[in-house]
Structures are given as C-alpha cells and as structure tokens.
C-alpha cells in the first residue's frame, strides 16, 4: 500500500491571498496508490494547500503561488499547462455533495461528454463502471434517469465521486468529503476510499482526526502558530506513527486535544 513512488511532489511552496501570507515553505511528497491525510486546526491552510494541487486556487483573484508542484515529475504551474486537463487528472470532491441538477446518468456522463465522448454505448459503460467503483451502482441502477438531487446526502456524495471517476483521473483530492453526511454513509465512503486507493492516489483534508487515522496511510499536520503568521507543515509521517508516537510536541498537543 505505501508505495514509495511520489505521484505529486511539492517543493518549497509559498502561497499568498493578496497581502495575506497563507502557507510558507511547504515541501511534501504525495505517494502514489496511497491515501494521504492533511490535518490541522481550522484556518491552518490545509484546504488551501489541497487546492494548490490541481490549481483550483487560480480561480480566486490575487492569489500567488511560489515554489514548485510536480505531477509525475512535470511542473503543474508551467505556462503551457492546460488547467482543464490537469483537473481531469487531479479530480476534486468537495465538502457538501454538489450533484448537478440533472439525472444520475447525466451527472456521471457530464465529464466524459465535455471531454468528447459521444458514443452512447461507451457512455453507458463509463456510467456503469464509475457508479460501480463509487459503490453506488446497486442502489441506483434501476433509476438512472431520476434527478441526482433526489438521492440521500451520502448517495449524492458517492455520485460526486462517480462523476469525478468518470473522467478517469489519477489523483482524487477530497476536501472534508464526509463532514455533511450521516455515519452510515461515512462508513461507506471510507470503505470506498480503501478500495479506490488501489487505482488512484488519494489526498483527503479532514477535521475528523479519527477519520484521518482510519483511512490514511500517511498524515501531514499543518499549523499556523500565530494568527498573523503563515501555516507550515509541522510533521509528515506514516499515519501509524503520527497517531501513536508523533515526533513533534505540537503534533502531539494537537492530536491529543491539548490545544486551547
């Protein structure tokens, strides 16, 4: 599981929102076919960092990125990079499930259609495969034409995962994917993550430390030690080590709830 090939490599990343210095000197290697969790208090920049990995922050005005992020060795901030194609390879699942107001089928087929697949049989196959991988096929195979919005919150989130999977990504970025859904659905998504990591590289941001402990192979702890100072990567290690014997006192204080 903990393959030592780095799918994504981040070197000395600084990130600014206008005048605000948000992240300082982050260097981290994200391992292929493993799940990496980012943890840290609110405002520590973990979601900002996640969004750097597929240039989602480009959509926010006045942001500035310095340093280097590579995907399979290629600089994702190089001038010739097509961000649409980057975001197909590095997909994102958000905190609140956000299905499009269209049928389940069309939700999943949306991406492949945008990327040029028009053949019905091919689309059918992609939809079934994606929904199966997202552990949703059995529940929705008989009602593919009903609205994605008619599903439960947990099912909607799995539909969003299927929608991302449908464009055949290599990396799945998950930003608090379980914070808005019920415990049974959380269990299903966590089981799903375990299956997905054999085919994808997964990065998850979570406030739920137990979730990080359950689902990830590697854990990175971010912290901004003062409100007006940028966040830094404090410690990055195997999840087992981080949760039994972290090296840094600040990590220990955070995960054992001794902050504040």
């Amino acid at each position, binding site marked *: 599981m903990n393959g030592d090939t780095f799918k994504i490599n981040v070197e000395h990343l600084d990130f600014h929102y206008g005048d605000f210095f948000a992240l300082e000197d982050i260097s981290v290697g994200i391992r292929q076919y493993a799940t990496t969790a980012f943890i840290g208090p609110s405002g520590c920049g973990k979601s900002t960092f996640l969004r750097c990995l597929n240039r989602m922050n480009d959509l926010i005005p006045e942001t500035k990125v310095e340093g280097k992020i590579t995907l399979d060795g290629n600089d994702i901030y190089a001038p010739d990079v097509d961000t649409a194609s980057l975001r197909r390879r590095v997909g994102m699942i958000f905190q609140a499930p956000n299905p499009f107001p269209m049928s389940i089928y069309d939700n999943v087929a949306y991406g492949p259609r945008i990327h040029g697949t028009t053949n019905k049989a091919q689309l059918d196959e992609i939809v079934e495969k994606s929904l199966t991988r997202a552990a949703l096929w059995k529940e929705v195979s008989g009602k593919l034409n009903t609205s994605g919005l008619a599903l439960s919150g947990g099912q909607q989130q799995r539909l969003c995962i299927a929608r991302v999977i449908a464009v055949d990504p290599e990396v799945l970025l998950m930003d608090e994917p379980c914070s808005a859904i019920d415990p049974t659905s959380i269990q299903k998504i966590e089981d799903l993550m375990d299956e997905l990591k054999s085919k994808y590289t997964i990065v998850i941001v979570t406030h739920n430390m137990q979730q990080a402990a359950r689902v990830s192979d590697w854990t990175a702890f971010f912290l901004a030690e003062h409100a007006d100072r940028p966040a830094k990567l404090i410690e990055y290690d195997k999840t087992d080590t981080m*949760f039994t014997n972290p090296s840094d006192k600040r990590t220990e204080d955070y995960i054992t709830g*001794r902050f504040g």
Partner: protein
Amino acid sequence: MRKTFHQELKELKGEVLRMGQLVTEQIDDGVKALVKADEKLVAKVIDGDDEIDDITIAVEEQGLALLARQAPVAVDLRLIQSLMFIAVHLERMGDLALNIAKAARKTTVKSEGSPELIGLINKMGKKVHKVVDASLDAFDRKDCVLAQKLPEMGEPIDALFKQFFKELTKSTDEESLEWASNMVLASRYLERIADHAVDIGERVCYLVTGEFQEFSDQEQ
C-alpha cells in the same frame, strides 16, 4: 482542551499508583507474616489481595471505556495501554505477595528457623520493596532514566536468591528442611516480584519514548 478526558486519565493513573502502594504493603506484610509465622497477618494479606484484584478489573474496564469513548492517540494512548499493563503486573506481584504469606501456613515448625535465612529473607524483602517503589516512582514521574536503573537494582536480589540454596543445604532434619524450603520458595516469589518491577520500568520507557525496548534479562 479535552478536560474531562484528561481528568479521567489522571484519575485512572492515580488508581494504578494507589494499587502499587497496596501491593508494596502486601509484600512487606507477606514477608513479615512468613518470618513471624503470624496467622493474623496472613489473613490480612489474603483479604488485601481481593482489593487489588478489584482495582485490576476496574482499571481494565475504565481503560477499555476510555479507549472506546475517547479514541485516544499518541501519549494518551500509550498511557492507557501502559496503565492496563502495569495493573496486570501489579496484580501478579500481589498474588506473589499472597503466596509468600501463605507459605507461613505450610510450615509445621513455627518461628524456629535459621536466623541466617530469616535475615536473608528480611533483607531481600527490603530490597524488593525498594525496587518496586522505584518502579512506581519512575512511572509516576515518567522517568525513563530511573526505570533503566531497575535491572541493576534487581541484581543483589538475584544474588540473595542464590544464597538461599546454600543455606538450604545446612538443614539437618526434616522439619527444618521443610521450613527452609518454604523460605526458598518465598525468596523465589520475591525475586519474581522484582522482575515484574523491571517489566513496569520497560513500560515506563515505552510510555516516554514510544519505543519498546526490553531491558537486559536479569535471569540470565
């Protein structure tokens, strides 16, 4: 700040330390009961063991409940695990103290044994008391340096244990041989108690460093 949880953890540690104190008293009483063949003290040690057993079960139950409810990690996780292990070691030390006291009942000759053996067992009892105290102190203060000294502190105890056999050969009749044999048995129990104290020391270093390392085996 997880105040309630850390308070509960502190209380659980307090219980284990209290248990340690009770066990130390049981060791002292056990040795005293044996050398003085004091039936009242034997009965007291037997009663005292029930309380130790009860605390062991309570520590295990409360430890499990904290694991289930609070999902502790890092030093908190290691502390709960250590508390549960240390409680088991203390419980066994208590059982050994009980065995020492019960050995008093097996002797047919009362308080007429060899003064050398009585001197030896008293001396050994005091040394074991010291090692057990040090192990509890190391645990209380999370002092890995002190914990690492425990094997060395146990060495004279092993040496004393060997002397018992020499004394045993001096017994001239069946009655004194039986009495001396019980003393040897008791010294073996004392030596085992000291080994458990060393095991507690290993747990202390694990608690502090997060890495388990066995101290050198003093039985070799």
